[in-house]
């Protein structure tokens, strides 16, 4: 069985930031927040794994550790066999990070100009650049809109541009943070369909999605992981989870394991 993402006993704690009053009255007091508590997880190639959990569950921390943006306190995580702390550069070659922060694009530039800029800093050679940019624009269906300024795109188009940027280096693994956040139901459905049919079934990518949207997870994920207060509460295929809990509805399962209603 080939696992492209392997996480073993990952732990991460943060020190809570203090307000001014707290800083004045308790300058040495530290409040520790456990973001990840002994998390272990394995994800197979070609899967879509949905990372579910309430706010503060540790979903984003986990994705950021796997993206080399946060250094864990202990434990080990590897991507395509490369350690996320010790072999950062090789990990970066294997991953694409797709987040919904539209501001990370340059709004006065066209879609194509944005992608050409990111392609250069991702190390794509000048003679391949046009081809690579066209390829990702075609995948996300924005080739005929590439000449339009980014600030004129709809939210759905901006989200697709984020996906296009994440695909520029043709990575094996994509980390997607809240893919349908802020999208209308039709655009959200299109994005989900695109992730599943185009990226996983056609291009054989592996995707780890952090989402609040249980319907989204239910509709596209092969594997589901529910995190709460930094711990994995439940994981497996939807069928397996339904069988183990004796509950058919994912929403009810979520309520049961996290206590969130």
């Amino acid at each position, binding site marked *: 069985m080939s696992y492209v993402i392997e996480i073993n006993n990952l732990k*991460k704690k*943060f*020190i809570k930031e203090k307000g001014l009053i707290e800083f004045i009255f308790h300058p040495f007091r530290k409040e520790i927040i456990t*973001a990840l508590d002994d998390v272990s997880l394995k994800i197979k190639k070609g899967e879509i794994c949905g990372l579910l959990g309430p706010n503060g569950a540790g979903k984003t*921390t986990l994705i*950021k550790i796997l*993206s*080399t*943006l*946060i*250094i864990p306190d202990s434990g080990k995580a590897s991507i395509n066999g490369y350690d996320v702390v010790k072999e950062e*550069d090789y990990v*970066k*070659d294997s*991953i*694409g*990070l797709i*987040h919904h*922060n539209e*501001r*990370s694009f*340059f709004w*006065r*530039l066209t879609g194509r*100009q944005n992608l*050409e*800029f*990111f392609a*250069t*800093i*991702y*190390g794509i050679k*000048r003679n391949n650049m046009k081809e690579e940019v066209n390829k990702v624009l075609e995948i996300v269906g924005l080739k005929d809109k590439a000449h339009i300024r980014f600030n004129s795109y709809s939210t759905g188009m901006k989200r697709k541009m984020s996906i296009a*940027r994440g695909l520029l*280096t043709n990575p094996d693994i994509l980390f997607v943070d809240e893919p349908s956040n802020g999208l209308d139901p039709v655009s959200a459905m299109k994005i989900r369909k695109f992730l599943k049919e185009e990226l996983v079934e056609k291009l054989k990518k592996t995707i780890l999605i952090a989402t609040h949207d249980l319907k989204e997870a239910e509709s596209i994920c092969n594997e589901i992981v529910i995190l709460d207060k930094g711990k994995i509460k439940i994981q497996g295929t939807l069928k397996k989870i339904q069988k183990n809990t004796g509950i058919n509805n994912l929403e009810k399962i979520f309520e049961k394991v996290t206590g969130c209603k």
Partner: protein
Amino acid sequence: MFSELMAFLKKDFLSASSYKLDFAMSFVGIFFSVISFFFVSRLIPNAAVVDYGGDYFSFVLIGLALSNFIGLGMGSFSGIIRSMQRTGTIETILTSRTKLRHFLIGSSLWGYFMTIFDVSIYFIFGMFLFGMKLNANIPAALIILILNTICFSAIGIIAASMILIFKQGDPLTWIFTSLSSILGGTLYPITIMPIWLQKIAELLPITHALRAMRRAMIQGYPLSALKMDILFLLFFSLALIPISLIIFKMSLRKAKKDGSLVKY
């Protein structure tokens, strides 16, 4: 690295050229600044700057021009980091193989181009409309400008490291900017200050950069006559660049450990 830097320049050019009015306004702003200092220079006796050729207008215009570069060197990197934290671009960059320091250098390039352009406009207005007198030793001036840029960029990299850790507070730029503007001699020669303040001023790189630049640009001093100021800037640059890069690397690691890269 070269193609990365060119990509930054192209991106910033495309962005800046889409704001045409802003571009025109900066041109007008320079004109008003030059005209103001031209009239102020009428008030000041030329004897006050006799060590620099005796023309206050040339003295102050060079001071302002070099201060633009100094401000850019000290402030641009921290400004870029702050903006990257706000927009989330820092995460996009850090998941690529591009080193963050390359990103900083690339992002500041357009600022340097625009400053060179602004300074040229200062000099064009000064010389052709207001009779600014120059007897420039261009190679010496270029060497001073390069050393000045390296030196203040190193301070700027340390300031950017502070932004990575402390987010808003950047005491280093504040201290250096305040001290430099009061003691460095941008608007007046340091010789009008008390001796003890002059001694403090001699410890600041801006004092050496301004003195050497004025002597090279106004009086055409050769490099040999500027060697003490140049050596000071060289020493400062050689010492600060590795220190600043180490501090930056440590700050980045700390921000990654704290999970605070995009907090601002």
